């Protein structure tokens, strides 16, 4: 008789074994499929190309306990001067008492678990559609074990004036949280979302997050993702985005610190005349590791995508950027631009930048570029010689560098909030 070796994965999954979902057979079936997928998958190693520059050992070697929906004072996480609908997720559970929103005609806004019970049409049509069978372990993990998150569906031609602000909190030591969102903007609708990912009172906790975003014909969605991690916490997040004809999607990702942050952004542009903007700013300190993997898949003609990611890396921090743009054979007259720029503030900071273009159409305009450099000492001296302190000069230079990374944020209060945070980080 042989004893099967207990793998890291088994130990890791054991922490999740107590989860009970009590869902109808359709959703149960999806979870079972994902569990089967999980059986076939293993955690990536340095040999896995997709994870070449990011070792997940720190995440998977830790032992976790499931986080509970605690009550936390969220007043510190609100964005000043922002009039928004506020929803709060704590450790993967939606906490209604902490949320502050009013129902609006034409907008379905509720917890995912509630939406599953109600069996909303939009939910069944889209949920899990873009995340299954991707052969990606963290995605399969979330498919199988996600607890809760936000379900948003905006009805046809509905324009939502107030932005939606989701505060997604992980708290406690060695906590694992598996949150999950689905946002659907139906034909001709418009919505702006902010999601803040925050860690409170805890070390070595792990947030495995997935959002599915569907932008139907002629719809507009702006998703702003603020990752305000403490330097001892881990996060793997995946956004699966699906764009229909004439739609417009913008994602802005601002990452402030994190022991290990990995963002997988996958955008499928499956119809013509779409516009896609994906921008990011990441600031690393100490031994932070911040990794952005993006994919834009242009499948149909006459689409534009613009991508700008900028990194500022201090101390011994590491930044990873891998941006892939596919232009399929049918996707003629595609304009796809991609840019990644990094500043290393010390000799011990590192960046691995890999922009990639795969073009199968012949009438397209595409470009990509990557730069990594240091602050120009001559420029610093020049500014000093005019009476600006060295620190002030550094700030001016960094702000100038970072400026165009997040200029697509259309919510003024958020822009100010982020500018402020960047300033704080540079102190």
């Amino acid at each position, binding site marked *: 008789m042989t004893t099967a070796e207990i793998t890291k994965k088994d130990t890791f999954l054991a922490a999740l074994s107590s989860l009970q979902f009590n869902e109808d057979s359709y959703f149960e079936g999806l979870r079972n499929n994902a569990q089967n997928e999980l059986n076939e998958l293993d955690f990536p190693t340095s040999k896995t190309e997709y994870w070449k520059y990011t070792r997940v050992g720190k995440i998977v070697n830790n032992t976790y306990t499931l986080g509970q929906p605690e009550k936390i004072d969220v007043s510190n996480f609100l964005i000043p001067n922002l009039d928004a609908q506020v929803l709060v997720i704590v450790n993967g559970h939606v906490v209604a008492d902490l949320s502050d929103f009013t129902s609006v005609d034409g907008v379905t806004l509720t917890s995912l678990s509630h939406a599953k019970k109600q069996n909303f049409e939009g939910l069944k049509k889209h949920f899990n559609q873009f995340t299954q069978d991707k052969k990606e372990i963290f995605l399969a993990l979330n498919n199988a074990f996600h607890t809760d998150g936000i379900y948003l569906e905006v009805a046809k031609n509905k324009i939502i004036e107030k932005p939606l602000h989701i505060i997604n909190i992980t708290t406690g030591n060695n906590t694992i949280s598996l949150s999950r969102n689905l946002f659907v903007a139906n034909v001709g609708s418009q919505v702006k979302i902010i999601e803040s990912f925050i860690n409170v009172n805890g070390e070595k906790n792990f947030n495995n997050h997935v959002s599915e975003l569907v932008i139907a014909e002629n719809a507009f969605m702006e998703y702003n993702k603020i990752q305000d991690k403490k330097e001892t916490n881990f996060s793997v997040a995946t956004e699966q985005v699906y764009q229909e004809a004439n739609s417009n999607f913008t994602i802005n990702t601002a990452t402030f610190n994190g022991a290990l942050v990995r963002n997988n952004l996958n955008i499928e542009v499956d119809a013509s005349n779409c516009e896609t903007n994906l921008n990011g700013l990441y600031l690393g300190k100490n031994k932070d590791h911040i990794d952005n993997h993006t994919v834009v898949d242009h499948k149909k003609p006459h689409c534009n995508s613009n991508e700008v990611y900028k990194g500022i890396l201090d101390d011994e921090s590491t930044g990873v950027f891998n941006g892939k743009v596919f232009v399929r054979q049918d996707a003629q007259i595609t304009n796809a631009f991609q840019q990644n720029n990094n500043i290393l503030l010390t000799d011990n900071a590192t960046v691995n930048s890999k922009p990639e273009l795969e073009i199968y159409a012949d009438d397209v305009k595409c470009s990509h570029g990557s730069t990594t450099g240091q602050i120009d000492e001559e420029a610093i001296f020049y500014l*000093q010689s*005019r*009476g*600006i302190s060295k620190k002030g000069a550094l700030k*001016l*230079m960094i702000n*100038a560098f970072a*400026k165009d990374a997040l200029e697509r944020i259309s919510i003024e209060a958020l822009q100010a909030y982020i500018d402020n945070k960047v300033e704080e980080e540079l102190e």
Partner: protein
Amino acid sequence: MIKINNLHASIDGKEILKGINLEVKAGEVHAIMGPNGSGKSTLSSVLAGREEFEVTEGSVEFDGKDLLDLAPEDRAREGLFLAFQYPVEIPGVSNINFLKTAINEKRAYLNQEPVSAKEFLGMVKERSALVELDTKLANRSVNEGFSGGEKKRNEIFQMAMLTPKLAILDETDSGLDIDALRIVANGVNKLKSPNNATIVITHYQRLLDYIIPDFVHVLYDGKIVKSGSKDLALELEEKGYDWIKDELKV
């Protein structure tokens, strides 16, 4: 205003300044001339506080303070200004914003109120006109995409905005056509007052037709070897620097 006493400075162990003595009083214009490699730009760099240079001996007193003891930004706040020989391009940093920051940091240092938006805009308008600098340029990123002449005019514009006690113009004339030279010189002359002073560092006498110096010094091999009136510049122009070299050998 400034008293330089037996100033020695070296870079990477190589001595460039070998005992400079110079005193400049308020209201005066001094020209420092000299052949390439004589130490002209080193002198301006040391005074502005560039870290690569090590002062090995001597002292510099600026308005009663030990200049060498101050950080570069504090030297500027005390009223020292260097117009760079090669002004740096700083993409993304707006000329106007950085000047506003500079003025307010200086004001804070001197315990003064920050400049109001209205007052500042008035200053920009008036002082960019002084050097015929298009206000569009004033609003662009610092020196980015500027022509050589525009960069030098921008230096004088910055000088006009910061109203220094002592301005050091490091080869501000080199590479300028005669029109640009006239504009730059005109700007400097208009800023002249009995309370401030100027040190003009140049290789050529030409600039001194427009900015008339009270004293001319010749810098050679890290020392001031000859001083005189503005006629010395004309003599140099006529006889060349070899004349000085020959005279020294005797």
